[in-house]
């Protein structure tokens, strides 16, 4: 059954249809939430909140074709709400600097992963959200702006600043291998 039909059924109160929709989207939402929040338990809370709100508020969704964008928006909002509530804490990711500036091969993917995790940690949650929507969900920027509930111009500038910050972190890491193995605040 196509998603539009499922959305229309769920909007009319069909919980089975909603369960099918949730089943096809929860993996993606969980990953988005983990990338934005960098915490599995918080991500779990955010996705639960997202799906409960989605079920409750589905009758308010006018256009079934906007279901995915709407769900992304709920997810991002749930994540950002949690970041505002949570107490700041220190990350304990181990540093493994990447010296290669080319495409990663099998041997340095793990290092890339950690380097990126460290770089993302230095971004504001709102900046992480736009990076995740644009580069992991591969949303066009207007769709990412829509999901974030911000004007396109704001999304552009926010993404620009986020990418610049990420690049700067990568470059610093690659210039300063003495950080290898140290904790990150």
């Amino acid at each position, binding site marked *: 059954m196509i998603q539009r039909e499922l959305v229309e059924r769920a909007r*009319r109160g069909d919980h089975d249809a909603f369960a099918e929709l949730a089943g096809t989207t929860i993996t993606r939402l969980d990953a988005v939430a*983990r*990338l934005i929040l960098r915490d599995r338990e918080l991500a779990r809370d955010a996705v639960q909140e997202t799906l409960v709100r989605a079920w409750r508020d589905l009758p308010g969704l006018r256009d079934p074709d906007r279901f995915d964008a709407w769900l992304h928006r709920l997810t991002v909002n749930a994540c950002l709400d949690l970041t505002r509530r949570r107490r700041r804490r220190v990350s304990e990711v181990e540093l493994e600097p990447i010296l290669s500036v080319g495409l990663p091969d099998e041997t340095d993917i793990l290092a890339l992963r950690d380097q990126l995790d460290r770089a993302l940690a230095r971004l504001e949650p709102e900046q992480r959200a736009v990076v995740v929507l644009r580069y992991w969900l591969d949303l066009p920027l207007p769709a990412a702006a829509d999901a974030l509930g911000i004007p396109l111009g704001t999304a552009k500038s*926010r993404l620009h600043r986020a990418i610049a910050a990420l690049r700067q972190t990568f470059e610093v890491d690659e210039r300063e291998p003495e950080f290898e193995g140290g904790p990150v605040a």
Partner: protein
Amino acid sequence: MTGTGRFERRLHVGLDELAEPRFPDYFDEVLAVTSRRRQRPAWTFPGRWIPMVDIARRPAFAPSLPWRAIVLVLALLLAAGLGLFVVGSANRAAPPFGAARNGLIVYSSNGDIYAGDPNGGSKLILGGPAEDVEPNYSRTGTRLFFIRSQTDTMNTFWTMNADGSHIKQVTPDPIATLTMYDWGPTDDAIYYVAGELGTLRLHSVAADGSAQPRIIAPDLAISAFWFRPPDGREMVVRTQDSSGVALWVMNVDGTNRRMLVAPNGSDPEEHDMAEPRYSPDGTKIAYQRWNWNGTDYQNMQMHVINADGTGDHVIPDPGATFDGWPVWTVDSKQLVIQRAFPNGSTYLDFGYPYAIFNADGTGSARPIGPPVAGQHAEISPDGTKLITFWGDDPSKTQAIIDLADGTFKSVPWSTGSYPSWQRLAP
């Protein structure tokens, strides 16, 4: 590959590694929660519907009778009025437009309908097993319509007297998607918008259920409407289709239509010109519009335009990113709006009080009431107060703001239904 492209490619790869998509183990737990929760009825969503209590002044009446005849008529009217007052002052009909005396506030709670006194208690108007919601007083204050919910998206209109007597089903068949509704200029008809986005249509139906609903201006995808005081013979409507969003003025039967504000080439957007409202004297219209630079939406601005389409001007704002949801004061000189400002990385930070200012753009705005964000609001029949909501759903509470000094108080009940304040004869 450019440096930027190479970096973005690495970003993709790194995010894929970090994401590790897998089916979460809490899926069943979430479904267990949602299966126990009831969905919110569609009409409770802000911006989806806008029933209205208009507040225009009564048309001026210039008597030409001889003085003695006037005295005689007044004496007779006074005697008749005293008699009616003795029989029951609550039943006196208010004029459909213009200032009136404040009556009760009608609201729904747990599927039943109550009328409450903001200074005292509430009385049950309609109880029973049916899910009855969104009660709304007619302009004369003597009738009520409400919606009976059959499922969360299938509903029927019903009407009754203000005291709960003479209940009558108005729409014979369930309506799938309601987005806005209001009493017509008289107590004889209800107007509503129903349908899907892009195919919304304006309907009218006889309030006594004697005729099938009919579509007004069926070639227009009307999403909002507002009757023009002081007689309600015309209306301003908002249309939204693939060509964009526009405002039209037309007779209430859809004839004699002319475009008031043309589409500006922006993408159709839900809140663009969402609530056009005539001033109570019928000479002007306030509406909100995104400032569109040809590429992006910049900020939502408040416009005031003469009813004939001339003199469109933007109300100056102090760096606000959103000026919207206008409500006129009874003298047609001021507007009350909701305002948002940028705050750090947040583009639209509401959480500010209402702003009241001169509709001609002069002077500065005065903040009144509690912080609000996209709430429904209406002026009291006597024009001294604003009734709205504050707090977050589902615990939001109706609040009454004094327009003169900006103070506010909560009403002694909890409801999510649209504010509807009974109009009583002055």
